[in-house]
C-alpha cells in the first residue's frame, strides 16, 4: 500500500483492494507519528534530516514505514508483518524509487502540485513495486 500525501492523500493504492478503508485509516493514523518525528528534529537540522523515517509504528498485522521529502510530501508504505522478505534496505529502495518517480511527476508542467496524482508512469512504478513485494 502506497500513499503520497501532504496530510491529505495525493495517491493511495492498496493490494488487495478489500479492506481498503482500514488501510486508509492506518495510513492516516501513521501521520501522527510522522508529525511527531519531524517536530522532534530541530530547525537547523531539518535540512540534513534523513528522508527515510523508518518503521513508524507497530501493529499486530502490519508494518508501517514512512518517508518524507524536503517539500514535506510524505510517503507511507504498509506491509504485512508476515512478509519477512522485506528488510529495511528493500523498503528504503522502494521509497527512493517512489521519490524519483514522484519527482518526475512534479516535473510535468501540466501537473499542478497538490492535485491528486494521475500519472501512468507513477502508476506502473507502484504496480511493479507491489508485484515484487507482495
Amino acid at each position, binding site marked *: 500500500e502506497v500513499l503520497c500525501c501532504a496530510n491529505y492523500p495525493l495517491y493511495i493504492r492498496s493490494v488487495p483492494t478489500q479492506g481498503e478503508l482500514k488501510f486508509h485509516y492506518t495510513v492516516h493514523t501513521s501521520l501522527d507519528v510522522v508529525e511527531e518525528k519531524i517536530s522532534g528534529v530541530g530547525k537547523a537540522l531539518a535540512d540534513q534530516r534523513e528522508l527515510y523515517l523508518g518503521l513508524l509504528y507497530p501493529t499486530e498485522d502490519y508494518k508501517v514505514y514512512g518517508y518524507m521529502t524536503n517539500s514535506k510530501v510524505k510517503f507511507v508504505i504498509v506491509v504485512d508483518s508476515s512478509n519477512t522478505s522485506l528488510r529495511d534496505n528493500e523498503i528504503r529502495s522502494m521509497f527512493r524509487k517512489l521519490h524519483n518517480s514522484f519527482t518526475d511527476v512534479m516535473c510535468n508542467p501540466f501537473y499542478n502540485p*497538490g492535485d491528486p496524482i494521475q500519472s501512468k508512469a507513477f502508476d506502473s512504478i507502484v504496480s511493479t513495486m507491489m508485484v515484487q513485494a507482495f
Partner: protein
Amino acid sequence: MSPAQWDLPPELCCRPVAFVALTGLDVVYNAIHRAIWDAFCANRRADRVPISFKVLPGDNEYPKCRTKRTSYEWYIPKGILKTGWMNKHLNLVPALVVLFYELDWDDPQWKEKQSECATKVEIVRTSLQGRNTKVAVVLIQKKTPLPPGEDLVASERASALCGACDLSGKSLFVLPHTDHLVGYIIRSDFLFLNKHQFKMGFFSELKQDTQNALKYYRTAYSLVHELRAHETNMLEIKTMAGFINYKICRLCFQHNTPLDAIAQFRKHIDLCKKKIGSAELAFEHTAWMSKQFQSFGDLFDEAIKLGLTAIQTQNPGFYYQQAAYYAQERKQQVGQLCSHEPGVGYPAPDPLETTSGALDFYGQRPWRQGHQSIDPPDSEKEKQGILALQVKERDIPHSELIIALLSNAVAQFKKYKCPRMKSHLMVQMGEEYYHAKDYTKALKLLDYVMCDYRTERWWSLLTSILCTALKCSYLMGQVKDYITYSMELVGRASILPEEQKSRIEKNLIKVLMNEVPEPEPDCDPLSVKTAQSLWSDRISLAGSNEFTIEVQDYVPFVQCKAKFLSPSFHIDEPVQLHVYVRADCPHPVRFSKLCVSLSNQEYNQYCLLEDASKGKDILEPSTQENMCLVPGKTRKYCFKFVAKTEDVGKKIEITSVGLMLGRETARYVYLNWRGGWGDAASSHETLQACRSFKKRTRFPEQQVDWDTVTIQSSTMIISRVPKISVQLTHEPPALTNEMYCMIVTIQSGEDTVAKDIKLTAGLKPGQDANLTQSTQITLNGTEVCDDSHPALLPDIPLGDLHPGQKIVKPLYIHCVSTGSRILLFHVAYSVSATVEGKDITCKCHKDETVTLETVVPYEVAMKFVSSKFEHLERVYVDIPFLLMMDILSASPWPIELVNSEVQLASSMNAIDQPQSQVEGVTLQTSECASECFLLKCPPVQNGTSTVASGHYIISWKRKSTFAETSVVRTIVTLPHVMVENIPLYVHAELPSFGRVRESLPVRYHLENRTGLVQDVEITVEPSDAFMFSGLKQVRMRILPGAEQEMLYNFYPLMAGYQVLPQLNINLLRFPNISNQLLRRFLPSRIFVKPQGRNGDTSIEAA
C-alpha cells in the same frame, strides 16, 4: 459462564503480600489493643514492608493441610493450578501468627501467666496443624523496659517463657505500651518479615524476592508451553500461560524493565496466537486474546502511573486498541457461530453446573473436570457443553466491552499526541455504538471526528463516516442531521458511486418534500420499522420544519460564490452583484429562494430571487428554468440596486448568501454561505485552481468556468464623478511675505444646476505643523495677513452654478517661511441625478492640489564704511561714517522697490536728512540696488561700547501684470556696531585735485578730544612725487579741547594718482593709538592733473 470468565482472578492481579495473623488482641473492647492494631494497619506507609494483617481468634480454623507427597512418580495430575490455591495463600494460611499477651516482667503472678501463655501458643499451633507457619509471641507491657542487660529478672524470665512456649528467643517480643507505639511497631515489622523469610521456598514473591520469583515464573512459562496441547486442554494451557505471562510482565514492570515486559508479551502472543482450540468456540480464543492485550495495557498503564515514561509509538493505547480489535473479532465470530435456530434453547441439565459451584482447576471444562486425555470422554456431553457456552456467549454485551476498550485506548492516544489515532478509534467507537443501536451516542462521536477528516481532506474516510452517520440520523428520524449528511454525501467530497449518490439525493428530495425517505441499506430491520414510524410522525408535526445549515463547516453539494462586479461603485450608478451557484449532485435540483444579505440590510430586498408563484402549484416555465441547478453547470444570478446617498464613502459587504431548498409550505432548508462563498473545502480548491496551469476551456455563451470566478465580497460606494473643472492661475514661486495671488476658476460641465458650491482652500492638512503657523490665506488681497488668519479657509460659499457658467475667485496666500507647501482647493456641490429611474441628489466634489514653492524676494547686505569707503570694524565717536545697503534681487519676477527708510536708534545720528536713494527702482532677477546714509555716533561712555543701529524698512511689491498686488513692508534689523572714543582727531583740508608744478596747499587739523594736555610729535616723510614746504618734524603741545592747524604747501611733480607725503603722528600720552589708525582719517593720495598747454578747460571738464 459469566462475562467475567476471561477476567484474571483478583488474587492474581494484586501484588502478593505476606499474610500475618494477629491473635490475642481484643480490638473491640480493649483500647490498648485497638491502638496496637491501628498502629499496624491504619498507619501503613509506603516505606514499610507490605504485609497484610488480619486479627483472628486464637483457635481460628486454618485450611487443612493435605499430606504432602514425597514424589510425583505415580501421580496423575488432574489439572495445573487449582482455583483456590492463590487465595488460600494470600488470605487463609498465614505466614506468621503473632500472639499478643499482656504480661509485665515483674508481674506478681508470673508463673501462672507464663503457663497460660504457653497454652495459648499451643492452641495456635494445633489449629495450624503442621503447616509451615511461624508463631511469635508479643508481650504487651505497661512499663518501659530498662536497657538490655540491666534487667536481670527480665532476661531470666524471658528465656523461661521461651522454653515454656517452645519458642526461640528471636520470636519473643516486648511491646511496651507507651507513646512510641508506632516506632516500635515499625521495628517489629522488619523482624516479623525476617522471621518468615525462610518459609515457602518457592513462594519467593510473597517474600518480596521478586528476582527469584521472576526466574521461577519464566521456567514455569516455558514448561506450560511444553505441555502437550490438544483441543481438550487448550483452554487450560492458555489460561495458565496467560496467568504466568501476567505475572512475568507485572514483575518486569515492577523491576523497571519495560522492554523485557513488552518482549515477553510479544513472545506470549506469538506463541498463543495460533492456538485457537475448538473451532466451534473460536470466540473463546479471541476473547482470551482480547483479555491478554487488555491486561497488558492495564499493567503498562499502571507502570506509567508509577513513573514509567511511555512514548508515542509504544504506549498502552496500542494494547487497548488491539484488545478492542480482538473483541470486535469475537463479536463477529459470535455472529457466525452462535446464530442458532430460534428453537434451540439452553441445554438442560446445565452442563456448566458443578457440584461446588466453582471449578477446581483454572481453565478446565466444568463438565469434564480433571479429565486429561485427548478425546472428550462423552461426545454428547461435549456437544451440550459447547452449545451452552455458545448460548451464553450470545448474551454477552460485546459492544459494551469493545467500547470500553476503545475509550481506554482513546484516553491513551490522547495522552501520547496521536490525534489521528484518537479520531480513528472514536470512529470505531461510533460504529460500535451504532451496532449497539445507541444511535445518539454514535452520532455524537461521529459528528465530533468528522470535521477532522474533512479538514484533512481524507474524502474516502469521511465518506465512510458520513454513511454511518446518515444511517444513524435516519434511524433516529433526525431531520436536520439527515439533510446535512445527505448533502455532503451527494456532493463532491463524497467518493460514493453515482448510483448511491442518486439514491441519497432522491431521499433528500423526499425529505424536503416532507415525505418519508427510503431506509438506508444494511440497517437493522427492527430499527427501520421504528424509524419509519418516527418519520411519519415528523410529517404530521407542524413547525420545526425549517433548518439552517452553516455551509462553512461542511462540503455540501451546492457551491456558491457571490461577488460585486467592481471594488467600488459611484453613487449615480447601480451597484451590481453576481451570485454563481453550482451543484455537484447527480440529478438536477430546484431551489425556491436565493437571497443575499448585505452589511446594510436595507439592500437585501433587492438581492432576492424567489419563486414567483409562491404557493401556486404550477410554476412558470421561465422561473422553473431559472431556479433549477443542472449538475456541473454554473448558474449566474445578477442583482443590482441603487445605493443610498448617505452610504457614500461606506463599504457594503456580503455577509451571507442563503439558498433555500424545499418549499416553505412543506419543509425547507437554508444553506447559508457566510461571507457569500466557501465551504469547508473551498479554500484549498481555490488555491489549487489559481496555481493550476490548466488550459481554460472556452465555455459557450452564458457559461462560466467555476474556477475563474473570483471573489469580491465587498464594495465601496463612492461619490459621483464631478463634471466641473477647477483651474488655478498663479505665478509661482511665491515670495516670502508677499500676498501671493491665486485665481481659482470653477467651470461647470454639469447638465443641471450645480447647487451650493463651496470652496475650501488653503494649506492641505497633514503637512508639517510649522507650515500651519507660517501660512495664511485670505480673500482680501489689499492688506497683509497676520497670524489671525487661518491656514485653511473652509467652505467658502460660492452660490449656484448654471451649466456652462464659471466662477472666478482670487485668493491670497501669505507665506512667512520659504520652502514648498501643498495647497488644496476642494470644490463641493450637490447636483440631482437620475439612476435607474430614481431621482437622487448627489454630492460631488473635486479636489485640486498644487505644490507651491516660496522663495525670498531679495537679500539685503549692510555694512559700515568710512568716508573713504573703507570697511570699518568699529566706528569712532563724532567721526562721520557711511551705512551702505545692497539689495540683491533673488526673485524670478521683477520687484519694484517702492520706498526705503532707515529708522536710527538713539545711539546714531544722521548727518543730513536721510532720503531713500532707491525709491521707484525696479529690480530684475539678480540685479542689485545700493544706497548709503552718512551717520555719526554721539560720544559714548567708557571709551568703547556696542550699540544698536536701528532698522531698515523696505517697501516693495511684485511687479506683475497679472494681478494688482499690495505693497509689502519688510523690516530689516541693522547690525550692532562697536563705537569707540578717540583721543586725537586728525583731518585734512585739501583741494580735490592738484596740477603738476602748481602749488597745492594742504591744511591738517589736529583736535585734542581729551581733557588732558597732549604732546604730539609730527614728522612728514618725503615723497618722490611732491616737493613740499612746511615743518618737516615738529613736537608740540595741544591743550584740552583745542585744535592745532598745520599748513603745508605741496608741489606735485608728476601727474596721475600720487601718494601724498605721509604724515606720521605720534601721541606720546597714548602710545596704543597707532600712527596707522590716525592715518586712516587722512587722505593718502591725490589726483594730479598734468600741466595744461593753452587752456585747461577741456581737461578740467574731463
